[in-house]
């Protein structure tokens, strides 16, 4: 998913940088207001954890590998604005020190993994928890949100690559290739996101940045008797 320098046309780089800059401005304005003092160590920990987690490449299909992105978890625990800043820190350090993702393509990588990969899971989670208010709905919302976030991030990466002249395939082929593979990543990301959310709901619900309507009482947070 990390697009290196030279893979995208400069127009695509400029458009994606512009999109990311708009969200950076919003994020830097709003993240501080939404974060609680208790969440700042959590933000640092999750950012470091997903930087490390992206080192683990597990095999998927066709001899390819995948790794967790982390966007959905940071979105649901810290809120989307702080989540986007977390992902930006990871992507910037990866690009500057390790050459994992390019400098000209940083805007595209932030757009795919830091905007789409963060705001979509949050929006889906909000939508599902608005329909049904229960612990199970929270976890289902987290899973579906994470899955769709990863898949849509891949759709955007495919569109960016498909509209660049270096790749001779049409955008539709690039999107299809990226989406098939990233569906597997999405399933893994969904399971991990729901798992982390379940753990935090059980141990430290005060650390979560859930919307007001998704905040459950202690009784509602109890897992069903069958899985206790």
């Amino acid at each position: 998913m990390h697009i290196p320098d030279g893979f995208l046309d400069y127009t695509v780089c400029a458009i994606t940088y512009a999109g990311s800059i708009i969200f950076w401005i919003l994020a830097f304005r709003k993240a501080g207001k939404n974060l609680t003092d208790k969440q700042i160590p959590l933000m640092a920990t999750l950012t470091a954890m997903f930087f490390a987690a992206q080192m683990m490449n597990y095999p998927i299909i066709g001899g390819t590998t995948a790794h967790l992105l982390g966007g959905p978890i940071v979105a649901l625990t810290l809120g989307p604005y702080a989540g986007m800043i977390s992902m930006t820190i990871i992507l910037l350090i990866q690009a500057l020190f390790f050459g994992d993702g390019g400098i000209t393509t940083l805007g595209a990588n932030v757009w795919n993994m830091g905007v789409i990969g963060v705001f979509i899971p949050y929006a889906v989670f909000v939508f599902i928890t608005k329909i049904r208010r229960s612990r199970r709905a929270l976890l289902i919302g987290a899973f579906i949100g994470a899955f769709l976030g990863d898949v849509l991030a891949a759709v955007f990466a495919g569109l960016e690559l498909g509209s660049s002249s270096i790749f001779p395939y049409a955008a539709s082929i690039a999107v299809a290739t990226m989406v098939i593979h990233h569906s597997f990543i999405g399933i893994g990301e969904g399971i991990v996101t729901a798992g982390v959310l379940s753990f935090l709901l059980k141990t430290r619900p005060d650390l979560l940045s859930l919307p007001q309507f998704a905040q459950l009482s202690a009784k509602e947070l109890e897992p069903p008797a069958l899985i206790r």
Partner: protein
Amino acid sequence: MRTDLSRHRNPMLLGIILSFVFVVVGAVWLSQSQETLDKVAEHLGVTASPIWNPPIPDYEIPGFEGNPLMNIVTVTVFTLLVLAVALIVGKSLKAKAKIQD
């Protein structure tokens, strides 16, 4: 022996321990990366044209390629750097928001 994770009330410490586990697993067992994009680019003969020479390309210090121990040390140091940067950024954002309020 049953381990009750709910006893780990300090998520920051747990997160740091987990990060180290991820680094070790990533460096020793799950280090081979062949993402879809890499594979398609390889198939098409497309190569990256970096505009910046990163000091630690592919997470390996030049001269220590293929050395998992060095890889673990490098990524652990950078994981702690990411932790520090995120902590500073988070604190600055909160301080800025408090001033504005």
